[in-house]
């Protein structure tokens, strides 16, 4: 593969990594969220404090992509080798601003399903469930979600609401008892990047990948997607980003299988 060509999974990870600012803490899930956070730390966000629900806080530099957020290398030269209670409590008391998740289905308010497809008792497919997702989506102030973009996944009504987004809209999280001023921040997909409209908490298209039209993104979304007046085109991954992703973030090719 030449330096200038890249796969869709790499494009998503690069786009997601750019959404993470420096000098913040992020609580990451296994897979693409972890890859994107590790890439951010090795490029524009060297002070990013990576936190893992199994107990690790702030590994200095990951030698490869951990296959789970519990893998031993997450505590190498770390700030804490704590417990799940310790890490989740950091998020509960407001110290971890960003949460980074995947999901199987999402609705217009950024609510996520990672539990079942179909009827709960007679499912078509059974996913692992919340894991730490419900906790991360409840407690972090800014949740970033990364997932494939199509009508089966971007749906009007979730088969199961595993992790809270903005629930039913403005004020719903607060009414449910969730911490105030928290909720989904970005959704990075195979087609572009969405945010949430401050007035309605509904999903809004902010950025698109090159070669993807706004019409195509609307077409692949099963609910009414708001569109920003100024939809930016996302810059292609740089050679530097791709090289660091392939050689330093994921040298044993865990992302290659996705």
């Amino acid at each position, binding site marked *: 593969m030449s330096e200038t060509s890249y796969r869709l999974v790499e494009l998503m990870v690069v786009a997601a990594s750019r959404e993470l600012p420096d000098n913040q803490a992020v609580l990451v899930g296994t897979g693409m969220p972890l890859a994107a956070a590790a890439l951010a730390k090795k490029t524009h966000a060297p002070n990013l404090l990576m936190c893992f629900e199994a107990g690790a806080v702030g590994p200095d530099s990951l030698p490869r992509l951990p*296959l789970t957020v519990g893998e031993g290398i997450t*505590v190498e030269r770390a700030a804490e080798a704590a417990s799940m209670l310790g890490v989740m409590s950091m998020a509960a008391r407001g110290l971890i601003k960003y949460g980074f998740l995947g999901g199987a289905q999402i609705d217009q308010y950024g609510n996520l399903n990672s539990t079942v497809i179909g009827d709960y008792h007679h499912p078509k497919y059974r996913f*692992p*469930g919340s894991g730490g997702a419900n906790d991360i989506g409840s407690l972090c102030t800014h949740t970033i979600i990364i997932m494939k973009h199509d009508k089966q996944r971007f749906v009007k009504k979730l088969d199961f609401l595993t*992790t*809270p987004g903005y629930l039913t809209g403005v004020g719903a999280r607060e009414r*449910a008892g969730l911490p105030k001023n928290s909720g989904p921040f970005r959704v990075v997909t195979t087609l572009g990047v969405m945010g949430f409209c401050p007035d309605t908490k509904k999903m809004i298209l902010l950025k698109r990948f090159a070669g993807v039209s706004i019409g195509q993104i609307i077409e692949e979304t099963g609910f009414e997607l708001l569109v920003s007046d100024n939809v930016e085109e996302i810059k292609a991954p740089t050679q530097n980003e791709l090289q660091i992703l392939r050689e330093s973030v994921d040298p*044993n*090719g865990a992302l290659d*299988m996705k």
Partner: protein
Amino acid sequence: MNNDLKKGKNTPLASYDPDSFRDWIQNNKSINKLPKLVSMQKAIQDFLKDGDYVKLGGFGQVRASMSAIYEIIKQGKKNLTIAGHTTSHDLDVLLAADAVSQVEVAYSFGHEFRPMRSPVGLRLIKEGKLKVTEWSNASFAWRLKGASMGLSFVPARFMLGTDTFNFSGAREIICPFTMQKYAALPALYPDVAIIHVNRADIYGNCQIDGMIVSDDDAARASRRVIISAEKIVDEEVFLKDPDRTVISYYNVDAVVLAPFGSYPCEMPGQYWFDEYEIANYLKATSSDAELKNYIKKYYHETQNWDDYLQKIAGNKRLQDLVKIAKKEINPPLIKDVWEK
């Protein structure tokens, strides 16, 4: 306002009653330092019964209690309820061996960042053979902390507003100080905790290298605690560094020496995942017949845990996993594992 408070539609599948736990502890636990080193066969026979609620230690495929699971399967234990506080390969082989009838799910039926999932859980749910309820990972951490504090519930600011809550055994409450809504999570007092650790002494003191997950509180909250350890060390190791003791002897009922006890899962600082064996297992799950054959061949037709390790991995592979953990060699490329 209190009339509007919601309740999860399921009931907790373990006891949340502190007084029955206190009575049990006072009648069954000793604070004397007694030697507890036994075989895994005896530990499982003596301390794990059919129908028990079991909390497995570690985090999915990291520091898993595989040598204990081997023995549970070999002894044909049935109708266990498992705390799915991130369970992965450990739960999956128990399901494959028909040892489990209920799971309190936070993360279950998944295999982290592997390109394949086991369909065993889905199959059992569809056939009506497996009851599941929904929780989140932090809710297990909170529930075990609540039990370790001798309480019946703890308040939390997650689960709220979701189907995860609706399908759990949690309830909403109002804080008497702020009048804010909380999720009340029932304390979790498991019948048995099984925890694999890096080193223990014969009395049950334990050190864990790396993250603890919720194993400190799981050991305090459970009626029976079975420890398996990569290494048994002298008591002096604990006496000179008491701040490193994650689990103290008075919580523990049995200590078992189990080198490579987490295999084919990882043991932080000691050995890496056997990706070839995890792939081998996941491929076997695609057919019922193949999976039955796998359990028969590797669990029932091997003599003991050491024989299992030899039959599946052999010394050369085990030593390679140690070398990966020590950074003497690189882990395999994931595509080489799956294309093999």
